[in-house]
């Protein structure tokens, strides 16, 4: 408990990071209150089409081209956005940590092969790869999450590899080896816990990136068609850009603010883990 409290004290010093955290908390509350505030399906037509925000008290953010409630779309989209971002980042972290740990721990041939493998994924144009993956596997939410994870893990692998290379010959690892610990146990219980802080920072930034990827995919109409998402609202509203541009503007602001908040949290975590680097 003492460690967490100290960490929170250091995190709290960064005001921007606090704002970021507050915004994400609001988005989470929006996601959880959606079914309660808007009991109807957000994809259902509930009123006249193209009502501007504030024009009708029932629809504070207006209605879209078909007469669906934009506010309901934003609230339900909050959950989709955060969930896809979080799980995709988790997938990326698992792949990246595994590959980075093996490359950094064993070095030599393993390192060469795994880093080449990483370079392949760094080279392939990421969004085109994502389009191809989702098109081949089918546009379900699981495949979208998996696809975003597959295009996002390379930076984690490089980071974990560097951490492992600098940690693997330290005394505490040698001591563990002298005690007869297996490689797997050394990796998982001795080295990995020491490499975790920068991984958490990077993973939080990958959540932000994943939100942007998901929004681009659903903007293009290639994501799961059964799910309300902010990118999708923009994609469907763009045909009316000349008259009802608010349909595109509002979800875009939601994406921008959320991604911004996630980035601020990442910066704040970084500062809190490395208090000495703060004034750079």
């Amino acid at each position: 408990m003492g460690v967490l409290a100290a960490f929170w004290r250091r995190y709290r010093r960064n005001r921007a990071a606090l704002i970021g955290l507050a915004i994400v908390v609001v988005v989470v509350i929006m996601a959880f209150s959606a079914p309660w505030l808007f009991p109807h399906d957000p994809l259902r037509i509930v009123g006249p089409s193209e009502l501007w925000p504030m024009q009708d008290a029932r629809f504070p953010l207006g209605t879209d081209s078909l007469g669906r409630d934009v506010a309901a779309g934003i609230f339900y989209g909050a959950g989709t956005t955060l969930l896809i971002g979080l799980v995709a980042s988790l997938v990326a972290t698992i792949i990246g940590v595994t590959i980075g740990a093996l490359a950094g721990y064993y070095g030599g041939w393993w390192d060469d092969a795994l880093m080449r493998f990483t370079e392949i994924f760094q080279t392939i144009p990421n969004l085109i790869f994502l389009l191809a993956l989702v098109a081949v596997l089918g546009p379900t939410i699981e495949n979208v999450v998996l696809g975003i994870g597959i295009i996002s893990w390379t930076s984690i692998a490089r980071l974990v590899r560097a951490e492992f290379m600098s940690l693997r010959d330290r005394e505490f690892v040698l001591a563990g080896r002298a005690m007869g610990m297996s490689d797997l146990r050394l990796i998982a219980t001795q080295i990995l816990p020491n490499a975790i802080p920068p991984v958490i920072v990077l993973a939080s930034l990958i959540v932000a990136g994943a939100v942007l990827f998901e929004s681009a995919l659903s903007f293009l109409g290639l994501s799961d068609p059964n799910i309300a998402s902010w990118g999708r609202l923009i994609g469907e509203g763009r045909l009316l850009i000349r008259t009802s541009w608010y349909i595109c503007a509002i979800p875009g602001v939601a994406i921008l603010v959320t991604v911004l908040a996630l980035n601020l949290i990442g910066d704040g975590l970084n500062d809190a883990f490395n208090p000495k680097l703060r004034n750079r």
Partner: protein
Amino acid sequence: MNRTLLAVRRRLWQAIPIVLGIVVINFLLLNMAPGDLVDVMAAEEQINDPDVLAKLRADYGLDQLLHVQLALYVKNVVTLDLGWSYRHGQPVWDVIVERLPATLILMLTAMALALIIGVLAGVVASWKVNTLADNLISIVAIVFFAAPSFWIGLMMIVLFSVKLGWLPVSGMTTIGTDYGVFGVLWDVVRHLIMPALALGLFYAAIYARVMRASMLEVYGFDFIRTARAKGLSESRVAFKHVLRNALLPVLTLLGLQLGTMLAGSVVIESVFSWPGIGTLVFEAVLTRNFPLVMGVLLFGSILVVIANLAVDLIYMRLDPRIELR
């Protein structure tokens, strides 16, 4: 010169396993796609005689074992045969090459804008560190770093096309007009401004932040003190010594982000109906034209490999200490 040639050769050798890996991934994806080439052909040409289909499969080697098919695929790729796009009635390679110039124009302009805006903003921020100007640049940078590029594009359309009427909404040229050479050039530039900015501003934001940090770091090095001590003017120190060294991290990022930028142009091209590879691959995904999708994926990857090589060479020129591994 000799050193450069050696470095290029070594880099090319290193690129081979990467390109091979990409080819294998492409092949696996193509194989996972529902239906093979012959199914697509059969649907387009309305063939349903099983004997004809079997013969076609044999002709294309689709009845072979997976590794034989892979070998065949590699052989085809090496001879620049990426398959056939039935929808276009052309080889995939030709379809892509036809659309390439539009995408290259968009990407290079976006990259140039990102570099100019980002480096300028970063330099100004580092000169005025911790002032209002610095803070303002930081705030604008984090906003553009968080905004989806397609949304920036749409909002620019609302402002500059719909409200102000200054710039055309979509396409690359105005159809059915004859302006002469300079007129056409100007026409393309007017069509290019918004998509290039929408694509480039995200990277400009990154470069501004990196450039600021890297300028501040280089200013602290000993050789800068030496340069000042030998009586160089402040502007000469800034441009000849600091800027040149501070650019290196930005260049590294640029090399790493070429693929991302090419991919980003898919979304931007679809927003602005820009007639490049991006709209091509988008249409291909919608029509489930998998040979074309994978062709673009492979082509784009190889483009990135080549561009990375070019970035490495620029890197070597800027910093002669760097030996290419």
